[in-house]
C-alpha cells in the first residue's frame, strides 16, 4: 500500500468513526431541548414536570459522553485535510476552506459555549436562559452540519467556482451554500441523525420496559414516554429521510450518473429499469441468484415508470470522451452493497417504527415483548445505515475527489508512507480504545433506572461520603 491507499483508509476509518457520534449529538440535543421545554411548560404540574425532568436527566448523560467523543474526533477531521490531503487542500482551499472556517466561527463556538452554560450554569443563569442554552446547542449542531455538508456537496457537485491555474477559486459563495446537492443531503443527514437518536432512545427504553416486565413491575413512565416520543419523532424522521434520499437519487442521476449506475451495478443503459434487491454471485451481469423489483429503479432515478437509467459502459465512454482516458468506475462491490445496506436498514426501521406506533395507539407497547426485544437489537441499524450511506456516497464518487475536477490520486500529500502507517495505526488503535470505553460507559448509564436521579450530582450518582455536589466534572 502506498501513501494514497493508506490515507484513504485513514480518512474512511476516522470519518466513519466520527459519524457514529455526530448523529447522536445532533439528535439528542434536539430531543433534550424538547424534553426540557416540556418540563418547563409543565412546571406547575408536579407529576408531568417530574417525569419530563427525569427524562432529560437520563438522556443527557448519554448525550454528554457522545458529545465529548464527537468533539475530539472532529478536530482530526479538520486537520487531516492538510496533513494527508495537502494537494487537495491547495486545489480547493479557496472554496472548500470557507465553509469549514465559517462552521467553526458560527457553529462550534455556539455549541461549546452554550453547552458549558447548560452543563455548569443551571444555578447561575435563569431557567429560561438555561432552557435557551440547549436550544442554541441544538441549533449549533445543525448549523455545523449545514456548513460541513456544503463543503461535501461541493465535492459531489462543484458550483460557484472557476479554475484558475492549478486550483479552483470561489466566484459565488451563495451558489456554494444553495447547491442543489446540499439541500437534499442536509435534510437527509439531519433526519437520519434524528432517526439514529430515536432508535437509540427506543432501544434503551425497550430494554427498561422489558426489565420491568420481567420483574413484574409497572412500566416506568420515563421509559414509556421516552419510547413514545422516540417513535413519534422517529417515524416522521424516517419518512423525511426516505423522501430526501429519493430526491438525492434523482439529483445524483443527473449530476453523478456513474454513482447511480454503480449503486445498481447496471451495465447498460435501459428504460423501465428494475431495482435489484439483492444479488448472489457476480455483479457483472451473470448472477447466480437475484431478486429484482420491476421498473423501480426508473421510478427512483427518474420519477417515471419507463424512465431511462444510464449504464456503466455508456457513462464510462462518455466520461472518457469528456475527461480523457481512464477508468471512471467506482468499486462496484462496495457501492452496490453499501447502497443496499443503507436502504435495507431504512426499510426495516420504517416497519419497526410503524408497527410501534400502531402498538402505541392500542396501548400495548409496554406489554409486547417481542417488539421490545426487537427494538433493543435494532439499535445497531441506524449506525449501519449511516456508515453505509457515507461509504456509498464517497466511494461512489471515485475516482474523483471533486467530481469532474480533481482525482483522488492527485490530491494526496507528499508524505512518506511510514508516517501515514504511524498515523493510520495510531488513530485506529486510539479510536478502538475510545469505542470500547464509550460503549462501556453508554451501557453503564443506559442501565440506570428512571428514578436514579440525584438533584445535584448527576455525574456521580453513586452515593458516597466524598460526593461533591458543587462540582460537575
Amino acid at each position, binding site marked *: 500500500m502506498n501513501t494514497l491507499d493508506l490515507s484513504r483508509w485513514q480518512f474512511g476509518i476516522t470519518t466513519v468513526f466520527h459519524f457514529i457520534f455526530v448523529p447522536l449529538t445532533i439528535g439528542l440535543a434536539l430531543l433534550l431541548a424538547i424534553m426540557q421545554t416540556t*418540563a418547563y411548560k409543565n412546571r406547575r404540574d408536579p407529576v408531568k414536570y417530574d417525569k419530563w425532568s427525569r427524562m432529560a436527566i437520563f438522556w443527557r448523560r448519554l448525550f454528554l459522553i457522545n*458529545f*465529548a467523543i464527537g468533539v475530539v474526533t472532529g478536530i482530526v477531521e479538520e486537520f487531516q485535510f492538510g496533513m494527508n490531503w*495537502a494537494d487537495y487542500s491547495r486545489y480547493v482551499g*479557496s472554496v472548500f476552506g470557507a465553509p469549514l*472556517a465559517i462552521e467553526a466561527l458560527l457553529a462550534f463556538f455556539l455549541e461549546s459555549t452554550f453547552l458549558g452554560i447548560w452543563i455548569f450554569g443551571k444555578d447561575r443563569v435563569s*431557567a429560561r436562559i*438555561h432552557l435557551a442554552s440547549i436550544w442554541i446547542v441544538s441549533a449549533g449542531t445543525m448549523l455545523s452540519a449545514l456548513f460541513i455538508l456544503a463543503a461535501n456537496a461541493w465535492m459531489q457537485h462543484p458550483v460557484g467556482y472557476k479554475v484558475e491555474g492549478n486550483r479552483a477559486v470561489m*466566484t459565488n459563495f451563495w451558489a456554494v451554500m444553495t447547491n442543489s446537492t446540499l439541500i437534499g443531503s442536509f435534510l437527509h443527514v439531519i433526519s437520519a441523525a434524528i432517526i439514529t437518536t430515536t432508535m437509540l432512545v427506543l432501544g434503551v427504553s425497550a430494554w427498561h420496559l422489558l426489565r420491568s416486565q420481567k420483574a413484574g413491575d409497572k412500566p416506568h413512565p420515563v421509559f414509556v414516554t421516552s419510547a413514545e416520543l422516540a417513535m413519534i419523532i422517529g417515524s416522521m424522521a424516517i419518512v423525511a429521510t426516505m423522501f430526501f434520499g429519493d430526491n438525492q437519487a434523482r439529483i445524483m442521476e443527473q449530476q453523478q450518473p456513474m454513482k447511480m449506475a454503480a449503486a445498481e451495478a447496471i451495465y447498460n443503459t435501459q428504460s423501465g429499469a428494475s431495482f435489484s434487491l439483492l444479488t448472489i454471485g457476480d455483479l457483472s451481469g451473470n448472477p447466480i441468484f437475484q431478486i429484482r423489483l420491476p421498473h423501480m429503479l426508473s421510478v427512483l432515478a427518474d420519477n417515471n415508470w419507463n424512465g431511462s437509467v444510464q449504464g456503466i459502459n455508456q457513462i464510462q465512454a462518455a466520461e472518457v470522451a469528456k475527461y480523457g482516458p481512464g477508468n471512471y468506475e467506482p468499486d462496484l462491490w462496495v457501492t452496490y452493497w453499501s447502497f443496499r445496506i443503507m436502504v435495507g436498514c431504512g426499510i426495516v426501521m420504517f416497519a419497526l417504527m410503524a408497527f410501534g406506533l400502531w402498538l402505541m395507539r392500542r396501548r400495548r407497547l409496554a406489554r409486547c415483548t417481542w417488539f421490545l426485544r426487537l427494538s433493543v437489537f435494532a439499535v445497531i441499524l441506524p449506525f449501519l445505515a449511516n456508515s453505509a450511506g457515507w461509504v456509498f456516497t464517497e466511494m461512489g464518487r471515485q475516482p474523483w475527489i471533486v467530481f469532474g475536477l480533481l482525482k483522488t490520486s492527485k490530491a494526496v500529500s507528499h508524505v512518506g508512507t511510514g508516517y501515514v502507517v504511524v498515523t493510520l495505526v495510531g488513530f485506529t488503535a486510539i479510536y478502538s480504545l475510545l469505542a470500547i470505553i464509550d460503549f462501556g460507559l453508554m451501557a453503564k448509564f443506559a442501565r440506570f433506572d428512571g428514578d436514579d436521579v440525584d438533584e445535584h450530582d448527576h455525574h456521580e450518582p453513586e452515593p458516597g461520603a466524598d460526593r*461533591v455536589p458543587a462540582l460537575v466534572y
Partner: protein
Amino acid sequence: MLISVASATAAYSGLEIFWFIVIAILWSMYFVLEGFDFGVGMLLPILGRDDLDRRVLINTIGPVWDGNEVWLITAGGATFAAFPNWYATLFSGFYLPLFLILVALIFRGVAFEFRAKRAFPAWQAAWDKAIFWGSLIPSLLWGVAFANMLRGVPIGANESYLGSFFNLLNPYALVGGITTLLLFALHGAVFLSLKTTDELHERASRAAKVLAPLATMALLAFLAWTYVNAHHIHDTGLVPPFVPVLAIAAIAAVGWLLREKMEGWAFVATAMAIVGMVATIFLNLFPRVMVSSISKSYDLTIGNAASGPYTLRVMTIVALIFTPLVLLYQGWSYWVFRARVRRPPESGATTAPSSGNSNSPVEGSIH
C-alpha cells in the same frame, strides 16, 4: 526598516494583510485561552493532592475549555480558507508533531468528561494522566511548530515540505517549545490563583511564584534569539523592539504582581506575554507565512499562499459580523462563571451553593 516594510506591504493586497493579522489574532486568542487550561492540566498532579482537589481544579476550566479549543479549529479553518498553501504545507510538513498534538487533545478532551464517570481510583488516575500529558505535549509542540515556521524548514519549489520529523527538532525550536510550555504553566497557575480558594489558592500562588522567573528566562532567551535572528540573519520581516520588550516586561512583573496580591493584573500580564510572543513571531514572519531554509524564493508568503480576493472578501464580511458576536457571548460565559470554585466541606451531607430555592419545580432547574 520602515522602507522595507513599506515596500513589502505594497506588494500585497489589503485583504491579504488583513487576513494575516486575523490569523495572528486567532492564534493569540487560542494560546491565551487554551494556554491557561493547558496550564491547569499540567499543574493537576502537582497542585491536586487528592481527588477532590483535582476535581476542583478541573472544574475551574470545566465550562470553558471546549470553547477555548474552538479558537484552534477556527485558526485552522481560517488558514485553510484564506491561505490554502500555508495550511497544506504546514499541516503536511509538520505531520508527526500535529499527530501527537491530536492524540494529546483527544485523550485530554474525553478525560474531562470521563474521569468522574466511574468510581474506582485507577480509572480516575488514568484519566488524570491523560489530562496531564494531553496538556503538556501540545504546550511544548505548539512552541516548536511556531519557532520552526519562522526559523525556516526545508520547503522546495512546489511549496511542499522536503524535510523529516527530525528537521523540526533543533535548538531554537526547542527553546520555543520550552517557552510556550513554561508560559502556559505559569498562565495556568495564575488563573488558578484567581479561581480557587483556601489551600488550593495558596498552592497555586506558590507554583506561580516558582514558575514566573523560569518562564521569564525562557521567554527572554527565545525573544532575544528571535530578535537577533531578525536583525542579523533574516533581512525581511520586522520586529519593532517594543513588542518583545513589552512581553518580557509583562512576564517579569508577574512575580511582583502576585506578591502584591494583584492576581487579576498578573493574569493580564501573562496573557500579554503570550500575545507578545505570538506577535513577535508573526511580525517577524511578515510578509512570509513559512520560511524556506533552502531558498528565499521558496518562502511561502501571504501573496503566493492566499486563496484569492473573492474568498477573502466573503470571509472578511463573515468574520466582521460574527467575531464580535462570538467575543460577546464567550465573554458573557466567562462572566457567568466568574466565581471562584470552592472545595466543598469534608462531610458527605452537603448541598450545592445554589441560588435560592432550586428544589422548587417552579425554578425549572432540571439537574
